[in-house]
Every structure is written in structure tokens, then in C-alpha cells.
């Protein structure tokens, strides 16, 4: 019973959120996009604006992603690495 | 035409996902998951996100499949009966 109530409330919340969601493919504030599209080629000297956003304007995010990858792989190697002396 | 393609791709993706859950043969369901990843990368490409499409094709369709195949090779191939009672 309690589970059913929680389920109904959560489903209603999700339906409300899906109803209120931003329309697909439309934007209401494009100042950032216009700035990047007009100045990216001059400021970063790269033709691919996506790469210039990922590595230059948002370089810290890429550094964090690299850190996440490094930590995950270090954990996997620590757990699974063979013992040398055997 | 574009919308019809997207809807067809969505239907195929849902079908492959359901097949992946349905099969008792885990190797077959892994291949089905790889097919879903490939269709998802095609979907990303149709939505004008080629970066994400390349990443999805590389990671989802190759490395995840290889990891699951290696796991299946070292455990059991067929799913046990009786797991679905509840």
C-alpha cells in the first residue's frame, strides 16, 4: 500500500516534469552560443568549435573527466592485478 | 522522412533491448546489446552529434561487448532456470 502511494506520487511527478520540459531543439537564451560561434575560430584557432569548447573554454571539465577515468582504471588495476610472486 | 527514420530507429532500439532481456543465451543477448549500441550511434548521428556517435560506436559496440564476452567465457553461457520466480 505504501509502495503503491509512493509509486503513484513519483509517477505523477515524472509526468508533470515531462509535461513541463523545454521544447526539443529550441533555445530561449542564445548569448553564449552566439559568442562562441563568432569568436571560437579567432580565439582558439581551431575549425572544430565543439573541440574548442571541450578543450579550451571548458578545459577544466575535460581535466575532471580525465581524472575520473584515471581513478576508475587505477581501482580496476588494484583489484584485479596478479600477484607477481606466484 | 527524418521523423519517420527516427521513429523506426527508436522501435528497433526498443526491440533489441527487449530481446536482450528475453534471451536465455547470454551470448546472444550480448550481441543484441551491441546491435542496440550501434543503432544508438546511428541515432546520435541523425541528431547531428557525430562526436557522441563515434564515442558510442567505439565504447558501446566494441569494448562493452568484449568485456561481456570475456566475462561469459569465464562463467556460464546459459542463464539458470528458476531465476524468474517472484
Amino acid at each position, binding site marked *: 500500500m505504501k509502495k503503491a502511494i509512493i509509486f503513484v506520487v513519483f509517477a505523477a511527478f515524472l509526468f508533470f516534469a515531462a509535461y513541463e520540459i523545454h521544447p526539443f531543439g529550441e533555445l530561449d537564451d542564445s548569448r553564449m552560443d552566439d559568442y562562441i560561434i563568432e569568436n571560437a575560430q579567432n580565439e582558439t584557432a581551431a575549425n572544430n568549435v565543439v573541440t574548442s569548447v571541450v578543450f579550451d573554454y571548458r578545459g577544466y571539465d575535460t581535466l575532471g573527466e580525465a581524472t575520473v577515468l584515471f581513478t576508475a582504471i587505477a581501482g580496476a588495476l588494484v583489484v584485479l592485478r596478479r600477484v607477481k610472486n606466484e | 522522412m527524418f521523423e519517420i527514420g527516427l521513429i523506426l530507429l527508436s522501435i528497433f532500439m526498443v526491440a533489441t533491448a527487449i530481446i536482450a532481456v528475453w534471451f536465455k543465451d547470454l551470448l546472444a543477448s550480448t550481441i543484441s546489446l551491441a546491435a542496440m549500441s550501434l543503432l544508438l550511434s546511428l541515432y546520435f548521428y541523425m541528431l547531428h552529434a557525430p562526436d557522441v556517435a563515434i564515442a558510442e560506436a567505439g*565504447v558501446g559496440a566494441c569494448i562493452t561487448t568484449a568485456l561481456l564476452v570475456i566475462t561469459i567465457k569465464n562463467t556460464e553461457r546459459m542463464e539458470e532456470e528458476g531465476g524468474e520466480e517472484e
Partner: protein
Amino acid sequence: MSEERMSVIVTTIASLLFPFIFIFSFYVIMHGHLTPGGGFQGGAIGASAIVMLIVAYGAREVYKKASDEKLSIFESVGGLLFVLVGILGFILAASFLSNFLVGEPIFGNIPPFGSNPGELNSGGILPLLNIAVGMKVIGGLASVVLIMALAGGEKK
């Protein structure tokens, strides 16, 4: 995966395809600032080439050529290169990761505005960062799959 390699057909095709896939991965990494793709995507393609060798030949054979220690050293060098380029930006220009190579003779040609084919000798520090991330992803994903295959083979 300790049970040896797969059949001759599979191993021959895998070793034929391996250099092409690897060269394509280098292409995606090096042209990251001109075409779709970049460090992570190219690295995933290169790691999938190594994973194909692991599946075809078995983990032991690959371990003799490229052990997981070597692959993780490769990954760490990539991470260090990324941070080093960032700190160079801190020293030579305004801030951490700032693009200090724009306008310089190497990697510094500024392309004209609008869509144009572009040239390889542009992009500032973006090619360096792409190479760093590509090394990181190749080493990381390949070493994870290799170590999982090795650990599974030991149990039997």
C-alpha cells in the same frame, strides 16, 4: 581466456585489420580540431583495436607484447602531458589551460571565419591536449580489458 587463440581465419583477419584500425585512430586523434572526433573518440577506437587482438589471440599473447604495466605507464604519461600543458599555459600566458599557442608559428595559424577545410597546423594547444587524452584513453581502456581477461583466465 587462457584457452589459447581462436582459429587461423580469425587471427589472420585480426592481424590484417589491426594496423588500419590503429592508423584510423591516430587520424581521428590528430584531426580532432578539424573534423568530428577528438582524443576520447580516437582513443576508444585504438583501444578497440587492442581489444580485438585480445579476443582473437588470447590475453597471454598480448601480455607478452604489451603488458598492463606498460599500458598504465602510457596512460600516466598522457595524464602528465595534459597537466603539463595546462601549467605551461599558467606560466606563459594568463591562466591554467589558456591557449598560449595562438599566433605562434607552430600550431598557431588562425583560420578564416566561417566554414573552410582548415589545415593541420592550427588549433593552438588543442592538438597537444588531444594527443594527451588519446594516450590516456588508449592505455586505460586497453589495460582494463587486458587485466580482466588475465584475471578471468587464472581462475580455471
